[in-house]
């Protein structure tokens, strides 16, 4: 199967559907349900506002008359109130870094990092929508929504325009209180910006995951000889006479970067995951599924 390095909005959606089809619907839990005004289809195993029947309880003083279920009450001497299960929907905000560095791929047989990030993002969105959640993109001002139409909108928004810079930073426009957020990026840019965003997110009670998407070449640094390394837009430039001798130091720096990201996520209760473009997307999606579940606490 030959994969073109970048998605069009059509291929993005169809492939994401295929990827998402293998998983049970994502049922993200909401830790701070009370503070979320948006109702979803999450049964909370307690009485509240919702559509599903929860229980009949004897009417007490103070119950409004219209809450009494007359059909049930007619079968006995007492009065009963019909309660429904409290249901709530979760919001998942997804950020995909589309800076120039994400368009890199080390081999023609591998998709670019951007394409993989888009695929994962859409797969996650589809899972969420199937689970009745609401999804949205962080760099859009629009609030998260559910439904298949939202998937189409997201796919188009993901394909629209690239960030001009070499390295992107998450710039969340909207981040509803207590929602979930997932950022896909290579995180090779300034880590301080990411930490700042995560700090802000933590302040708003937003939890989530960072998925670092790397090409295997970036992990292995399989270069040798006299080489001029240039960033994808050409703004950065570095020349070495013997690339192989730099390998150790490069790997150390990469490990340090990962470690910094990991520490940042630990501080804020987020999750961190590294995905390589030569691996299939399924395990990462599964990981995301669990990571978002795990927040339940």
């Amino acid at each position, binding site marked *: 199967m030959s994969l073109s390095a970048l998605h069009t909005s059509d291929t993005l959606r169809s492939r994401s559907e295929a990827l998402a089809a293998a998983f049970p619907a994502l049922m993200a839990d909401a830790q701070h349900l009370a503070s979320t005004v948006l109702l979803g289809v999450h049964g909370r195993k307690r009485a509240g506002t919702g559509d599903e029947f929860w229980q009949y309880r004897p009417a007490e003083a103070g119950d409004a008359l219209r809450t009494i279920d007359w059909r049930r009450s007619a079968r006995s001497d007492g009065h009963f109130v019909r309660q429904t299960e409290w249901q709530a929907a979760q919001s998942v905000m997804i950020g995909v870094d589309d800076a120039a560095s994400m368009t890199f791929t080390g081999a023609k047989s591998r998709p670019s990092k951007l394409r993989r990030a888009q695929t994962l993002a859409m797969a996650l969105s589809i899972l969420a929508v199937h689970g009745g959640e609401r999804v949205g993109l962080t760099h859009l001002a629009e609030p998260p929504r559910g439904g298949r139409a939202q998937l189409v909108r997201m796919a188009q928004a993901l394909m629209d325009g690239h960030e001009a810079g070499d390295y992107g930073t998450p710039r969340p426009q909207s981040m509803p209180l207590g929602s979930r957020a997932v950022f896909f990026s*290579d995180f090779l840019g300034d880590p301080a910006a990411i930490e700042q965003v995560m700090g802000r997110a933590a302040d708003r009670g937003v939890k989530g995951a960072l998925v670092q998407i790397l090409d295997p*070449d970036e992990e292995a640094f399989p270069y040798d*000889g*006299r080489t*001029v390394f*240039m*960033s994808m837009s050409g703004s*950065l430039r570095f020349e070495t006479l013997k690339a192989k*001798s730099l390998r150790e130091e490069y790997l150390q720096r990469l490990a340090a970067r990962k470690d910094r990201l990991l520490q940042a996520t630990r501080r804020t209760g987020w999750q961190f995951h590294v995905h390589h473009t030569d691996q299939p997307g399924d395990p990462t999606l599964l990981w995301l599924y669990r990571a978002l579940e795990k927040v339940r606490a």
Partner: protein
Amino acid sequence: MIANLAFTTPLLLLALVALPILWWLLRAVPPAPIRRRFPGVALLLGLQDDESQTDKTPWWLLLLRMLAIAAAIVGFAGPVLNPQTERAGDGPLLIVMDASWASARDWDDRTERVSVLLDEAGRSGRPVAIVALTDLPAGPPEFQSANAWAARLPSVSPAPYAPDYAAAADWTGSLDAEADVFWVSDGLAHDGRDDLLAALSDIGPVSAFQGARDVIALAPPRFADGMIETDVQRHLAAAPRELTVVAHGLDPAGIPRDLARETVRLDTGELRGTAVFDLPPELRNRITRFEVAGERSAGAVTLTDDTLQRREVALIDAQGEDEGQALLSPLHYLRQALAPTADLMEGGLSDMLLASPDALILADVATISPDEEEALIDWVERGGLLLRFAGPRLAASDVARDTAGPLMPVRLRAGGRSVGGAMSWGEPKALSPFPETSPFFGLDIPGDVTVESQVMAQPDPQLSERTIASLTDGTPLVTRAPLGQGSVVLFHVTANADWSSLPLSGLFVQMLERLAVSTRPAIPDAEDVAGITWVPEQVMDGFGTLRDAGIRPGIPGETMVEAPLSADLLPGLYTGGEQRIARNVVTPETELAPASWPASLPVEGMDVVPATDLMAAFLAAALGLLLIDALAALWLAGRLSGPISRGAAGLVVALILMGQMPSGAIAQTGRSGDGLTPEDELALLATSEVTLAYVITGDPELDRVSQAGMQGLTNTLWSRTSVEPATPIGVNLETDELAFFPMLYWPVSAAQEMPSAAAYRRLNDYLRSGGMIVFDTRDAHIGGFGSGTPEGRRLRTLAAPLDIPPLEPIPPDHVLTRTFYLLQDFPGRHVSRDVWVEAAPPDAEQIEGMPFRNLNDGVTPVLVGGNDWASAWAVDSTGRALLPVGRGMTGERQREIALRFGVNLVMHVLSGNYKSDQVHVPALLDRLGQ
């Protein structure tokens, strides 16, 4: 070699001086950088190169380039190997050729060399004379134009004998000529070389030409310990060599063939070797000549004669009633005389005739039954030799009394006579000299041979012509009569010493030899062959080719054995009477010695080496080096990657191999680098650690899941138990040994091929020796065990040839339920209770107070189920579950139970019925308490 190198334009070589400058120039230029887009550059910023040498070209690459340029310069300078140089000189030229048998080995080279000399002489207009030393002209040499000699050169051929240097020196001394002398020598030190060299030096300056090839000499064969040995020798021994000695002869159909071959290996410096032939007599008697295969020289051929023949002689005496001493036996002396040189047979007459011997000896046998007589006559007429000895029985019988009969050469008088005995008058009679017509002519008669008794011949008209030996008084001692193609010979005395002392003397042996009853044991002496004229049958030329002798004159016996070979006495096969003698070029005494030349004498080789233009080779080398340089430069710059580098590496390897083709052609097959066969490697891999194995079904997806499932189980075992298995192995039933694996997981797919009979044999061996196969039909979600799913049907087909005991659904007290975890369910990806194991023996008893029966024996050899365990166990390379199981936490629980079942399974296989012994725990505790 280097000395023979010349250049057409040597001045170009001055360009080599520029190489150091080029070195300096090239060294200063670093390789060009390669540009790469790389997002990780952000992490690279600020790093320093710790090595600074690579901005210069590495020394070996420089060396490569220098070599390439040097090769190009040398190539353009036009190197020529073996440039032709003209031989200076004028005046007449005398070319003296040894033209002996030793020259025949490289005669073509010689004529080639001589024709080159003739060409040169022709260009210089020098008159030439060619003289073959083996065929000296009667007068002075004919000096003619080189062209005339070039036309006559093909008629000069090597002679099958050595040159007579003494005669040649005389002939040379008689010359009154001034000439340059070219001596084309055969390389051997024949007698009188120094004299000849001195004589030739008187004529003019001498140059010698001799070849570097070994002269091979094959000595006549000899008997040793019942085997035939022939010595091979050579004169230079500069290199090890293998010589094949071939025995030629006629096969039973009369067609010439190779009868036997032996190889003699001579190491460097080893001059002599011996080929030993161990042949049955029939084959041995058919050998006509030995030769060294591939050597065209009379010295490499040796003809065989009677020396090699061992006749088969049948001895028959008169059914001896006398059990007397051996020395009195009529056959004792015959045996003694014949045993060294003939194969003797003894037995009944009719038996002997069936064996068709060469000669048959009747010692004092008087009467022969009529049918035996008929067979005997028939045999003699077909060429047999019947030799009869007289004796008391013959003398007393009536045989040949009135008529001689076909089996008696003469008529006999009754009784015989006795002279010189105790009861008779007169002296014992001696032998009279043999007449010329006798086959014994020339033999010396010892004075002490006397005859005391004999049978007497009737005087007949034919008596005198049939008598071949007689006593001094004229009475016949030995008579002979022809019969058909054979003959009948009668010795008028006994074969033992009763009647005469003849059997005690050497003459007796010689007489038997002359009659060709026996063969001569060695090269004949002059007196052995004296008086016989030897007629050549076949003669040999210098190349060792045999041809018919035609009408060449006979050779008298005296010269036959002693005179050196010459134009009159060519090597070949000569017959005289009943015997044959071969004269060979090489005798057992022949010693090959290389000719030595004075240091002042120029000696040239025989090779005419054509000039070789090396320009192309050098330029090709330069081109090849530049190609390698290009690849190396690419590699240095890190631009070789992926398929390009593989292709380039292949190209380099091919180039290197091209240079080493002859030595590297012997490839090791079927063995990996460290000398292990693939089977050994599998065995090592599987036995170094406990290894889980699965059957490769041929369905790639299924096999991948099996591998992942075994890996998942391996991981679980590693983390939870003391079993720490190695990486699982896929097993090919057709090729791999199964005995190493404790357990074999066999996912059944409907499409799987039936294993071969050999594979089933291995599988059954595996089951009988304690192995366990887990069959997984993976269909529990659509049908229970035994239902007609395609996998279920396939399983039935696959398992039919296997040696599987009766099965039962796994009972709740089976040991599998408690080998590690306590389990009652065995789910995989599917949940089904249909898991079958070997049935418990019907007499298994419930143990009192225990929830299980007393099932002590054996690991179940098979476990059959359809729960798709491997899928539930499967993990990817990072250890995450590969396939979903069930839904949510229930699914995870199911996966956990599946893994626990896997652990139980491996524990069951490895520890057997250990947990079954728990039934005895109460008893053990009981005892401990006391």
